[in-house]
């Protein structure tokens, strides 16, 4: 298990990062062109209405004061009120977040399920025809935009073959396994391509490594060699990659959720940006940042659990 010091220092690392993240978020939301008041009022509002809106949103205060409020409110969990949704941002996000988390985890699970066996299959037949075919296929997967994969899956598997529902969101956990299958798959295809490439490479490397040879020389059963020595070692880098690709995965949800009509935070983010919903954009960006850094944290912990060399902080 990772040491207390390791965990502590990993947590401490997050603090300055987060302050910086807040500055970034605050600044570029302020830099958005177009008066947010106009954005929220739509075309028909009168100038007087606009002024009232500005007043209400505290947009007339100096930037520094606004930042002060921002940090204070964020820390206390108050992310403001969404212009678009007319409700507290935190509430809106919390409502939508589970969907995206579900979708992301689903996609991660699918990626691993697709990538791991194939990588093992390919690695044990390194440079054979099967290996080349699998790698070629995934190379293609890597070069496909997520939105395009989504579109094709939707049309072929959803509308044409009617194997899966065309977009939308289910009512229960189980129902969603079915409803979110296509969006998860369209994200997973890309992620699993990356994962499979990496996993295969590290498997090949590990299979070739001296300590695996040594394990074989010890006369250990093949099963133990493969699980205890090969897989575990290959996993270390795969876990890092998986952690790092959470960012990608989240990016994927922006497009996928829109295409597949999944009511998650990804789609909300796009809606918020198009509607110039400042508080919502702020809140969402912060949410994304929190999720990603939590994933990094989790990755680091899993990794340090897998790899004792990383445990010293």
């Amino acid at each position, binding site marked *: 298990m990772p040491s207390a010091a390791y965990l502590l220092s990993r947590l401490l690392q997050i603090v300055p990062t987060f302050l910086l993240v807040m500055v970034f978020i605050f600044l570029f939301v302020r830099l958005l*062109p*177009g*008066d*947010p008041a*106009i*954005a929220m009022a*739509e*075309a*028909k*509002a*009168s100038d007087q*209405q606009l002024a*009232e809106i500005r007043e209400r949103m505290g947009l007339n205060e100096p930037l520094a004061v606004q930042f002060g409020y921002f940090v204070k409110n964020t820390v206390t969990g108050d992310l403001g009120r969404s212009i*678009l*949704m*007319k*409700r507290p941002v935190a509430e*809106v996000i919390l*409502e*939508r977040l589970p*969907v995206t988390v579900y979708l992301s985890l689903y996609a991660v699970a699918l990626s691993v399920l697709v990538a791991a066996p194939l990588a093992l299959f390919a690695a044990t037949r390194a440079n054979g025809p099967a290996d080349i075919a699998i790698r070629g296929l995934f190379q293609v997967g890597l070069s496909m935009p997520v939105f395009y994969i989504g*579109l094709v899956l*939707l*049309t072929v598997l*959803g*509308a044409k073959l*009617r194997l899966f*529902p*065309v*977009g*939308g*969101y289910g009512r229960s956990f189980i129902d969603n396994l079915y409803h979110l299958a296509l969006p998860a798959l369209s994200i997973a295809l890309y992620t699993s391509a990356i994962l499979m490439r990496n996993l295969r490479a590290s498997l090949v490397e590990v299979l070739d490594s001296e300590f695996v040879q040594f394990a074989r020389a010890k006369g250990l059963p093949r099963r133990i060699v493969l699980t205890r020595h090969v897989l575990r070692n290959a996993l270390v880098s795969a876990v890092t990659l998986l952690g790092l690709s959470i960012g990608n995965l989240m990016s994927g949800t922006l497009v996928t959720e*829109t*295409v*597949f*009509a*999944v*009511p*998650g935070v990804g*789609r*909300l983010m796009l*809606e918020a940006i*198009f509607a*110039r919903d400042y508080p919502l954009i702020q809140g969402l960006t912060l949410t994304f940042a929190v999720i990603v850094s939590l994933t990094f944290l989790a990755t680091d912990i899993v990794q340090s659990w897998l790899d004792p060399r990383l445990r010293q902080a």
Partner: protein
Amino acid sequence: VERGGAMSFARYDDSVLIDPVWAERNPDIWMVTNLYDTLLRNGEKGALEPGLAEKHEVSADGKTITLTLRQGVKFSDGSALSAGDVVFSLERARNPDGPWGNLLASVTGVKAEGSTVTLSLKQPDPTILSVLATFNTGIVPKAAYEKMDGANDQEKAAAFYAAGPVTSGPFMLKEHQKGSRMVFVRNPNYWRNGEDGKPLPYLDEVDFEIIPDDATRILKLQSGEVDGAEFIPFSRVAELSADPNLDMKLFPSSRIIYAPINSRETKADGSKNPLADKRVRQALNYATDKSAIIRLVTFDTGMPMTSLMPAATTYHAGSEPLYPYDPARAQALLKEAGIEGGLDITLTTLAGSADDSTLFTALQQMWQGIGVNLKVEQVDSPTRGEKNRSGTFDIHTYGWANDINDPAQVTSWLGYYKHRQAVGTGWNNAEFNTLFETSMTETDPEKRREEYKKMQEIYAEEAPLLFLYETPFAVALAKSVRDYVQSPLGANDFSTAWKSK
């Protein structure tokens, strides 16, 4: 007709708060009357029909409106709808903080006496009856509403909505999963009767699914997962019309697409604005082949504009499309205006809008012929709004749909200088402005019609817009769904819809 069953409907965007007073965006506005009935109703051809008020009377001086409420009407929770509820609802609707408060600006007081409700006005207001048929005057139950917590009316409204409101309209809200799904169920106490003599609505339930992506929405319909899908892109209309399983509806709308032309004498940078000359604006209009554009953008589902207002608006005048395609005339007008050696004009379009980009490509090709060099500038919607307000544009694309069944709203928006400088064009025509002001207190319908006719003529002649086209509301339905209506104002009306089994 057949009663019962659930209809599912794919929407392009979700409602946030379906409340008469605080509904702000179309997905909210267009749902309100399903939940809250109004005192008067918009009938066929723009005529007003009785709603919750059986009778209405306008006093001779036009300053008092007396409404007699229908007897025995109940809210969905079974409580009786009383004059107190009406007064409460109208007082709420007058709240100047609400986005629609100014529609009732002429009202000075609302009083109830038994089952009559009296509105006192500052001055005669020809639009007031239409307002009483507009969503923002929908009737909410005072007692249930006042139980809600909230620092102000908006918060109360949100709480009321979230609690699953007691309604006066044909439906009640059963469930709303934000962003994904909303369910309306039949209001058993609704007062209007259907063709079979029993109370409306026919449907037990309407399930809404939010599918923002056009293609996905259609796929969803085609795969039979939903019974209807709104906002079908016009490019798909022909295809879906040919689909034997579907009923492709094009509901007439009050939606117009036009392009405001900056008509100020000088541009924002201080230079002389050639577009200030009406001949140049006319030339641009003549140089635009509207039917080609209608074909390209709306795939022949649209109609050319015939006046400043949508054809479905009361007092609309004008049967011929404005400025038929006549490049020679356009050229002559430009010459007359002294434009020699070409003209550089920038079209501000909405980034990412395929329609705008098609429009631009087409205009560029058309205007080349008369020596106008069209450049494009692509911005997002808030930026476009800002440019419109500050007048820093040559021409930009815009759209409009009426919210109330009265010509005043659109006329004021497009032409009345004092209301946002005639849709930002800076066009300031004294005669037009005076006409508009008089019409706002004109109670004689005939006189009013005359005034509007005149205004429309002036506007057409002056051409502060590039007049483009009107588009219908394109809704595709499964063959089993009948009698669903989307009003010209956009309201989704499920009260008379039914589903054959």
